[in-house]
Every structure is written in structure tokens, then in C-alpha cells.
């Protein structure tokens, strides 16, 4: 593949000169091969524990011992699919991991919806409304973003405990509500909404649309990228949270989200290693699906994060 690139370089006297850069074809191919090999090795460095986990989860204890020390350790055992089925069946039926996963999913979805609405509305007001005292809120937001608020998890626990008590459903609120507020998200929304032209909103207001209607029908649809970014990060945060639900749900094992349930499953003495690995795989699959589907928005999220300082 021979490629010639024409570059137009402005000269100091105002004229232009054309430089033709021709790269040697074989050298470039070799370089690309080296690049792909390096990339594959690096990818393996990041993925091998996950491949190991996946392979491990499909094997019975004896198969694990048999494949030890060989390359087969990283490959699923396709010959004996019954063992794989058994491992997954055990964690689903005997340890009810599906129910814990559903718990997590519920918490995540409710948190995402509330997160977008509550922080979005706040961002909308700060971006588009002229109200007395709005500087006060902006100041608090910037303060909370800049000052590293350290680990007030224990006082937070005490506040939530005092407010909600420790009875059943109230605990769910304790998990969800703290996850719905994020000053950083308010900041992101505010920045994004500021770029929406005021004419759109004025036109809608002329037509008699209420503020809430404008927010849901105009602002949110226009801000799909930022809504997606916030939702994805909220999902990852709630799904992966371990410490907070463990603290909160000591007495309500049925309500545990999946991460906290993993600790219980891991502690079971009579459960095979393969089944324990299967529980880790099940925990990671939803997050992987979201990650692959929403990569674009994750990268975009970092574009905005870079603006922060």
C-alpha cells in the first residue's frame, strides 16, 4: 500500500509550497505488524484475569485441576458443558444470584431516572433562570467540587439511619437517595444547558408550554449526549457500589444488591470454586453490556471531565 500525502505548507513570503511525503511500503507494514502485536499483548495484560475468570467459571473442580499449568486454563471447557451449566445453575438456584442482580438493577434504574431529573432540573434553573440567590447555589456547587470532601460515610450513615430508621423499604430509600444527588452532575448539566439557544425556550414559552414541559420536551431531548453520559456513570456507580449497601442492609439480606451478595457467596465453604467464579462473571456481564453499548458516551464523559480544572 503506497501512500503519498501532499502537504501544503505556507511560506513566510506568503506563497505556498507542496511537499510530497512518500513512505516506504514494506517498512510501514512491518511497523503496523509490530504495533498490532504489541497491542494484542497489552490487551491480554488487561484482559487475562477476565478470561481466566470466564474459563474458570465453566469448569468443575476436577477439570480445573486437570487444566492447571496448561494453556487450557484460559479457555472455557467446551467438551463438558454440563459442568458449566452446573456452576451457573448452582449460583442461580441455590444462591439466588438472579434476585440480587434484579435488586441491583432496580436500584440502578431508579437512581438514574431520579439523578437525571433532579440534577437536570437544578442545572436548568442555574443555566437559564434569573432568580435571586442563584449565586449562592453556584458557589456551593463549585465549593463541593473543588474541596475534596473526605469520607463522611459514617456521619452519612448516621443521618440516614436517624431519618429512615431501619425498616425494610426505608433501607431502599437509603441506598437510592444518596446516589441521586451529585453536584458534579449539576455542574455538567448546567454547562451543557448554557449552550442551548434561548430562542428555543422563548418560542416554546410563547406557545404556552410550562417550565416542566420545556425541560422534558425540549431541554432533555436536545441534551441526549450529556444525559447518556450521566446515566452510564450513575449505572456503573450504583451497580458497582459495595460498601454503602453492605453497611445499610445488615439486617435485610433479601434486599442486598449483587456486589454485597458476592461476599456472602464467596464465604460459602461447600460451594465449588467454579461456581464462585460464575457468580463473578454474572456480576460483570451487565456492566460489560452497558460499557460496550455506551462506549461513545463514556469517552465523551472524559472529554468534559478534562474541562474541570
Amino acid at each position, binding site marked *: 500500500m503506497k501512500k503519498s500525502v501532499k502537504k501544503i505548507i505556507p511560506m513566510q513570503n506568503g506563497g505556498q509550497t507542496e*511537499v510530497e511525503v512518500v513512505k516506504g511500503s514494506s517498512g510501514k507494514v512491518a511497523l503496523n505488524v509490530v504495533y*498490532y502485536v504489541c497491542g494484542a499483548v*497489552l*490487551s491480554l495484560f*488487561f484482559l487475562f*484475569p*477476565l478470561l*481466566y*475468570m470466564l474459563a474458570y467459571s465453566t469448569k468443575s473442580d476436577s477439570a480445573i485441576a486437570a487444566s*492447571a499449568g496448561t494453556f487450557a*486454563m484460559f479457555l472455557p471447557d467446551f467438551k463438558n458443558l454440563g459442568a458449566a451449566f452446573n456452576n451457573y445453575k448452582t449460583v442461580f438456584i441455590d444462591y439466588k444470584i438472579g434476585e440480587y442482580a434484579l435488586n441491583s438493577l432496580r436500584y440502578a434504574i431508579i437512581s438514574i431516572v431520579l439523578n437525571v431529573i*433532579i440534577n437536570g*432540573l*437544578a442545572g436548568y*434553573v442555574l443555566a437559564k*433562570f*434569573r*432568580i*435571586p*440567590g*442563584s449565586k*449562592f447555589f453556584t458557589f456551593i456547587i463549585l465549593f*463541593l467540587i473543588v*474541596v*475534596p*470532601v473526605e*469520607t*463522611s*460515610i*459514617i*456521619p*452519612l450513615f*448516621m*443521618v*440516614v439511619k*436517624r431519618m429512615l430508621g431501619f425498616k425494610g423499604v426505608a433501607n431502599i430509600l437509603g441506598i437510592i*437517595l444518596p446516589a*441521586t*444527588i451529585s453536584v458534579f452532575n449539576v455542574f455538567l448539566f448546567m454547562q451543557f444547558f448554557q449552550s442551548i439557544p434561548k430562542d428555543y425556550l422563548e418560542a416554546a414559552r410563547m406557545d404556552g408550554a410550562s417550565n*416542566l414541559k420545556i425541560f422534558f420536551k425540549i431541554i432533555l431531548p436536545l441534551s441526549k449526549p450529556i444525559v447518556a453520559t450521566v446515566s452510564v456513570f450513575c449505572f456503573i456507580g450504583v*451497580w*458497582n457500589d459495595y*460498601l454503602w449497601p453492605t*453497611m445499610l442492609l445488615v439486617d435485610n439480606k433479601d434486599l442486598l444488591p449483587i*456486589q454485597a451478595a*458476592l461476599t456472602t457467596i464467596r464465604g460459602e465453604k461447600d460451594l465449588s*470454586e467454579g461456581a*464462585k*467464579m460464575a457468580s*463473578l462473571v454474572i*456480576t*460483570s456481564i451487565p456492566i460489560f453490556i*452497558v*460499557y460496550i453499548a455506551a462506549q461513545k458516551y463514556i*469517552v465523551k464523559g*472524559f*472529554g468534559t*471531565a*478534562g474541562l474541570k*480544572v
Partner: protein
Amino acid sequence: MEIIALLIFCLFLAVFLGVVAHDLYKAKKTNTPFRVKNCIAGILMIAPAVILCFLFILLPMLFSLGYAFTDYNQMRPDEVHFVGFNNFKEIFKEIGSGGDMLYAIKNTAIFVVGVVPLQILLALGLALFCSRKVRGSSIFKVCFFAPVVISLTVTSYLWLTILDPSEDGLFNMLLGAFGIPQQQFLKDPKTAMLWVVLISAWQGCGYQMLIFISGLTNIREDLYEAAKLDGANAWQRFIRITVPGLKSSVLYITITVFIGACRIMVQPMLMIGPYSEGLTLSYYMFLQGTDYGLVGKSSAIALLMTIFIGLVTFVQKKVLSKK
């Protein structure tokens, strides 16, 4: 507790009303009055966020600040006394006598000193690798970032299996193939924290990689072309163009990685446990507040951490933005 919370709320309300009065006065002076209907709608719409922020962010923060100067104990929550700086004195005494607090500081220091440079350099290398304009480089990006989205629980348990100290553990098997004797990894007090550093860097660096990549794309392409024409080699281009161009990314990443590293808690908690080699500042603070019920002491540790992190962040900002 409720009374104090109410007092704090009143304080905030007073400040807020002050700002409102100031704004109203100014509006009258400049003859740009607020629209009442608009204001009411706006306040109603921002109210949920304000209430939640107050309850779940500001209030715990202020309580933590207050508890640091009391002997609040979860066992007897009705007897709270103001004890001045006693908690802090006790903490420093513990450091002096080589107690758990000293271990916590030592382990956190090991972690921070290890993970901050390692993770940043790894992330920078990966970002440079991915920024090469070749078909397929974005697939590598997806692979490198994958560990970031996996939960700490899963990675911790996974690595506990891989680093199993018995001869069946994956790493011991690999080492065995090279004739290296069996290692204890996370179970060895001497190397436990080092492995936590390596695992954290492995898991976390994809995150900073993406920030570096977005920083790299902001560097103008024609700068490189011009330098190439002037005969600058790859290293010179890197030092003269890439590094200065990444200044704001480096500043942001150094600060956030540093803050994150200082707060390390879940990994040693799951992988090492509450032993002297696994205690970090956050973990120790957490244990004091929950298992021992000593909320006062725990809050004092949190306050010291906040002050320390705040100071270091401030210095980092000054030093890094000067260069």
C-alpha cells in the same frame, strides 16, 4: 442531632436570604426586576436538588467536622461531650507509640507513592499507544479500559484467586515454570501492599488513559508536522510538543489520582483484611467508626485527612501550573 441539623439549616437559610436580599437590592438599583412567577418556578425546580444536597452531602460533612471534637460513641449515643482536641492528641499519641494509626499512615504512604507515578505513566504510555492513527487502535482502547468498569469486589476476589498462595494459584504456577519458589503475595505482610498497588494500577489506569487521549487530541496536528519538517526527532517532538500540550491533563490527573489514592479502602479491606499490613487511613477511620463505634476519633481522622489532602492538592496545583 435534629436540633443541630435544624440550626445548621437555619444558618444556611440566613446566608441564602442575605444573598437574595443583595440580589434584590441590586436589581432595584439597576432597574432589572426579577419576574416573580419565574422565580417561584425556578426555586421549586431547584428545591429537590438543594434538599438532597443538604441532607446527604453538606449535613454529613458538617457533622463529621463537629464530631471530631467530641467523644461521640455509637454504644452510648445519648452522652456526647465536647472534648476539644483530645481526639487529635490521642491520634498523635498513637502515631508516636507505633499503634495502628502509624501502620495506617505507612500503608497509605506506600500506596500513594507507588500508585500515583505508576498509574500516570502507564496511562500516558497507553494513551500515546492508542493515539496512533491506525485502524483498530480504538479496539485496544476498549480493552485497556475494560478493567475500570469492573467492580472492586469482582476484581478483588478475582485477584485473590489468581494470587492464591498455594501452588495451584495462577501466578505461583507461572513462577514455578521459571523455577521461582512459591510466593505468598497478598498473604505476606511485606508484599501485600505492593500487590494492592499493582492491582489498583492495572485496574485504574484505563481511566486516566482516556483523559490523556482527550488531551492529546487537543494538541494541534500542524505543530508536529512543522517540527518534523524542522528535523525534530520523535523524542524531541514528545518533549517539546506533547508534554507541554498535556499540561492541563497532567495537572488534573495528578490531583485526582492522588486524592483517590489517599482514600484507598475497599481493596485492602477485601484483599488483605483488618491486619496491620492492610490498614490504610480510610480503612482505619472506617473501622474506628463502625466496629469500635468511636465516631469522634473516626471523624478526627477524616478531618486530618481532608486537611492533608487539601494542602497537598493546593501545593500540587501551584507547582504544576507554574512549570
